[in-house]
């Protein structure tokens, strides 16, 4: 029964999220509204973690299976795939490398600058603790 209770919370939020998708004129999918609703619920303790975590962990663990049907749908878009095969592969690969490098270097820059000012008492004076 515990599982049913947890699922009913998760599905109720999903339903609320669908309502929001209908009502709010933004190009945002219901699942994103739901994710944010759930996060707010958890942070404010309106939804205690232990009231959802069992079912939530199970669903997240098996999530990859849920992508299978949509991916098999590639059968029905072979033509569209053929038309963009080369750009698809080139863009998917190259951008991945660029994004990783930029994100990592930016993070490292911010962390090291933070460390430097923390080590130097003159500079860190008056600054909030990071």
């Amino acid at each position, binding site marked *: 029964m515990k599982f049913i209770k947890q699922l009913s919370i*998760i599905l109720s939020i999903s339903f609320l999220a669908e309502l929001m998708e209908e009502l709010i004129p933004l190009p945002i999918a219901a699942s994103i509204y739901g994710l944010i609703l759930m996060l707010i619920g958890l942070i404010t303790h309106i939804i205690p973690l232990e009231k959802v975590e069992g079912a939530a962990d199970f669903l*997240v663990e098996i999530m990859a299976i849920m992508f299978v049907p949509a991916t*098999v749908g590639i*059968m029905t878009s072979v033509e569209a795939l053929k038309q963009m095969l080369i750009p698809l592969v080139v863009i998917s690969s190259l951008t991945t490398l660029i994004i990783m490098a930029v994100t990592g270097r930016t993070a490292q820059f911010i962390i090291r600058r933070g460390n430097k000012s923390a080590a130097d008492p003159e500079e860190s004076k008056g600054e909030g603790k990071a």
Partner: protein
Amino acid sequence: MTEIVTEALTESVYFGIALTLLTYQAGLWIKKKVKLTVANPLLLSVIMIISILLAFEIDYDVYHNGAKYISFFLTPTTVCLAVPLYRQLDLLKKYPKAIFGAITAGVFTAMVSIYLMSLAFGLTHEQYVTLLPKSITTAIGMGISEKMGGIVTITVVSISITGILGNIVAESLCKICKIQDPIAKGLAIGTGSHALGTTKAMEMGEIEGAMSSLSIVVAGIMTVVAVSIFANFI
């Protein structure tokens, strides 16, 4: 005889569900045996299903008739991604500047680089928005592609290429670009190659893994906003 089988298949809801679960388990088993990133259970399962459908001349709709009930769980599961994010909230409070600064830079780089390359290849609007959400987790990426009028199945393929490549190159890329800080490594891998990259980040270390899984959801949400702006450019 064949007619009876065909009729049973067309009406069956369980055929698509059973085929999905069985091939996925076979995929998991193969992954365990060969231990290669390319042997991704999702990919293996899809290849097996398509081969079976083609070999027996079964229509995609027949498969989808049952398999759609599996996809049905995608929205509630994406909602549940809030749970792991909530558990990592302390981390977010500890390094807010590095996390938000780096992921914002990563998402912006993603948008700009995809935009420029799409322009160079002369892609249509439909093809362009198909690729825009390519670096984020499938759950969020599929929703974006659908909302923006992209080809959802191709978005999933693009996300898979990204994840598999990210998983393979993550370690050497960090070395070449001199990214040594474990927090920076985790943020780079999670923002660049979502959940598939994160499995590699987890092997690299605890901090790398935690940062990478945090980045999946944060980058996903930021991308929702970013795509709604960048989608207008082509």
